[in-house]
């Protein structure tokens, strides 16, 4: 089975210069790989570094040590050392990300927020909007909201806009940071179906799900992040 992403010996800590330079270790010795057509789940208690791992894979957090090798276009790229421009290209074409919270932009409609990643990949704007409509309908977002900027939406509504934005493209790798946290049961089931469709399409998914039922429904394997606790690694 193809492994489009391989993480090896990644370590991350935060140095708080405003707090006398104290160093907060987050994770160390993180090694795993993702397989196409599988959903891998990061498990472990809060604060174990699950979100930090996702953010490093997306280039949003810097990596102190180790490699994150991703198959991008026809070659391999180490995201831990890639230039900003390369990271942006990887985000545009290879790695998609559904964050926990939607970062809204004033005056941009929910429909265009969802369509944007497709437009960035060169899709025609109207075609992209058509796909956005279909996804928002599938996620039961009331149609009267589509033309409005999501800044004033409820948490669950924003989350669904965010999910649609993340699922609209055909990125071969998709990272999910608690996509179902503020959803009701009906919409959780929609997300489970969306994830199943991505798996069937050969996408490699990596997610954090605190909801037990969702995790049971989607996970092919679970990686316990507490095994990567910084400081424990020497053993």
């Amino acid at each position, binding site marked *: 089975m193809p492994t489009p992403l391989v993480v090896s010996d990644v370590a991350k800590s*935060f*140095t*708080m*210069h*405003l707090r006398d330079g104290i160093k907060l270790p987050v994770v160390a010795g993180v090694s795993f790989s993702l397989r196409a057509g599988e959903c891998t789940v990061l498990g472990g208690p809060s604060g174990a570094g699950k979100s930090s791992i996702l*953010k490093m894979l997306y*280039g*949003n*957090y*810097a990596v102190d040590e180790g490699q994150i090798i991703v198959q991008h276009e026809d070659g391999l790229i180490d995201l831990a050392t890639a230039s*900003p*421009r390369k*990271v*942006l*290209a990887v985000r545009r074409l290879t790695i998609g990300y559904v964050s926990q919270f939607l970062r809204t*932009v*004033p*005056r*941009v409609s929910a429909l265009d927020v969802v369509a944007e990643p497709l437009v960035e990949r060169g899709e025609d704007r109207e075609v992209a909007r058509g796909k956005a409509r279909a996804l928002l309908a599938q996620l039961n977002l009331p149609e009267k909201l589509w033309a409005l900027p999501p800044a004033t939406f409820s948490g669950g509504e924003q989350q669904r806009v965010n999910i649609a934005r993340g699922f609209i493209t055909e990125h071969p790798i998709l990272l999910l940071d608690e996509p179902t946290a503020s959803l009701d049961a009906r919409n959780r089931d929609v997300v489970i179906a969306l994830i199943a469709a991505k798996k069937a399409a050969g996408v490699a998914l990596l997610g954090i799900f605190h909801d037990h039922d969702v995790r049971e429904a989607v996970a092919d394997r679970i990686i316990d992040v507490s095994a990567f606790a910084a400081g424990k690694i020497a053993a």
Partner: protein
Amino acid sequence: MSDEPLLRVSALSKFYGSRVGCENITFDLWPGEVLAVVGESGSGKTTLLNCLSTRLLPSSGTASYRMRDGQFRELYRMSEAERRFLMRTDWGFVHQNPADGLRMTVSAGANVGERLMAVGDRHYGKIRATAVDWLSRVEIDEDRIDDEPRAFSGGMRQRLQIARNLVTGPRLVFMDEPTGGLDVSVQARLLDLLRGLVTDLGLAAIVVTHDLAVARLLSQRMMVMKDGHVVESGLTDRVLDDPRAPYTQLLVSSILQV
């Protein structure tokens, strides 16, 4: 996306006597890329912007620009006339104070049309039609075309200045605190407008700002300056979400939450 940068800056320094304006600045800018330069007053960000836009000559270092014919030209070796031509056609410069970038005593339409005439347009009807089109793109009503910018609000003036700069289809735009001095609601509208224009036109831009929210919204890449030096640079969201340099951590932690 092109595989060659639009602008290559290498070891650029500017000294005012023995005082450092900016020192040893090196970066590449690609077409369609927006770079934010952030830092507090006196950090050297405006000096850098003025050197890059050749309004100031640096003390040392080089900057080369890829002309429309694909050839790189060393900016500080061009003649004054060549630089002015570049400034009028292929570049734009959006000043913090619109009065510095507009002619306050000619009409809004003429402010936009003037740049077109500078690139050789002579047909009055066409110039006016283009001006009307650009005013509407920056959300200024057509019936204000004959008014002087003196009669415009601050936000309108800034939008007019942007139209004046973009009408010639520049490939690179310099912006010095483009939203500084505007009300917050006016800022949001301007930012949204700028963001849309930059994306639609595939502009490259260098935006100097002390406002990290502006940097986050407009730019993909960011350089943080302090005392004339770049203390941290990288993807905008990386620098803001995982700041590494002590000064960047101070800046990020100083943002007021609303």
